[in-house]
């Protein structure tokens, strides 16, 4: 049945609110494994040894299996203890809303992220950085600057400050907020030092 509209985050909430009650245990140990297994058999998904698939039909079957998995299983919200459900057409409406290209960063340091469709000659965006790994406060800026100065790196992914002003940045405390905002400032400082102030972080 044609979808009325794509599902925005508000509609998603409503679906969770009206969703079927499910225990987290049942979701993790029964529903997910069983449905994933069922989809594998239903669509005969078998990868064999090759890392990259070369069988076009297998790839398409995998896509449909994913869609079917989403429709059959839904998504679980541990806070509300419910699972939402979504129709196939609604999924495709949602995918149409997704952007095809994005501009990351500002000014001359901006880079564009466009759908590549296959192994085209256009290289993907290279996002360099500690990728969330912990970094000492004393060298944080230098660490990020060393990525920003790499020509192959287009955008920055930050590391994590373990301490701020020498104080542990434990989660869910004001120290974490202070540390995160320091990270943002140090990232900006690093991109400026590397002469690429408009780099996306």
């Amino acid at each position: 049945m044609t979808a009325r509209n794509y599902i925005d985050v508000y509609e998603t909430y409503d679906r969770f609110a009206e969703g079927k009650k499910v225990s987290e245990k049942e979701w993790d140990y029964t529903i997910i494994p069983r449905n994933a297994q069922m989809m594998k058999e239903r669509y005969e998904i078998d990868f064999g040894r090759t890392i990259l698939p070369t069988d076009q039909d297998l790839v398409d079957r995998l896509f449909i299996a994913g869609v079917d998995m989403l429709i059959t299983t839904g998504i679980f919200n541990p806070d509300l203890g419910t699972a939402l459900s979504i129709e196939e057409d609604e999924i495709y409406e949602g995918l149409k809303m997704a952007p095809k290209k994005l501009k990351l960063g500002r000014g001359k340091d901006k880079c564009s992220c466009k759908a590549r469709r296959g192994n085209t000659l256009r290289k993907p965006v290279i996002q360099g950085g500690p990728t969330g790994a912990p970094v000492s406060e004393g060298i944080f800026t230098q660490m990020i600057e060393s990525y920003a100065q790499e020509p192959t790196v287009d955008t920055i992914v930050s590391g994590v400050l373990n301490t701020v002003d020498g104080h542990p940045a434990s989660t869910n405390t004001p120290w974490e907020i202070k540390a995160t905002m320091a990270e943002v400032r140090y990232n900006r400082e690093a991109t400026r030092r590397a002469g690429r102030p408009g780099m996306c972080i």
Partner: protein
Amino acid sequence: MDMSGLNMLAGWHGAGDIIMIEQMPIMGGYTGGPEETAICDVAATIASFALFNCDIHLDGPIHIRWGTTTTRETLQVAAHTAMALDYNTDLLLGNQYYTLAGPCTEMCLLETAAQALVDTASGRELLSGVASSKGTVQDKTTPMEARIMGEASMAACGMSIPEINRIVDNIVSRYEGNYLHPPTGKRFQECYNIHDLVPSDEYLETYDSALRILSDCGIDF
């Protein structure tokens, strides 16, 4: 998806921010084997766009035993998932890098290069790395890993899938025997000059020898 996630999304969505959703399925966890994990990865990636209105999805299938993204199975999950979505949609797909070995080691560079070849060839739009030493050890990440990620990716662009498969299979076989005793590598301070921010000679030599190995495996850049 929990309520704080939903509420933050609501704010960003309302303000028109660029939203990236990161979701890293664990291969060998609840979702079981590579195929089932890939199916769930496809489903969850689609949901990130269709249900949670993100603009770009950051994947990162991780091995339950090794905690890395560069094992054969997790590369397989990432590749199949990416191509399933890439063939059927224009969605913007990213992937993350968690290597077992630490910086200033050939293994770390080979792991990174292998994943870069796979992600690039499977049509992904963004590569985000590198969390060397599994992203858990303080100061054990350097930009040399990001450099090889970028250069390997550029080299892979346009190559055929079977060819990439042969090369990657070759590269992976060079390091998958060391999972129990991976080289821990060096901290940033030990393989970079902090003041003028340049890699040490040792790291440059390690980088060059990694390039030689990659060349033996069939890829030059």
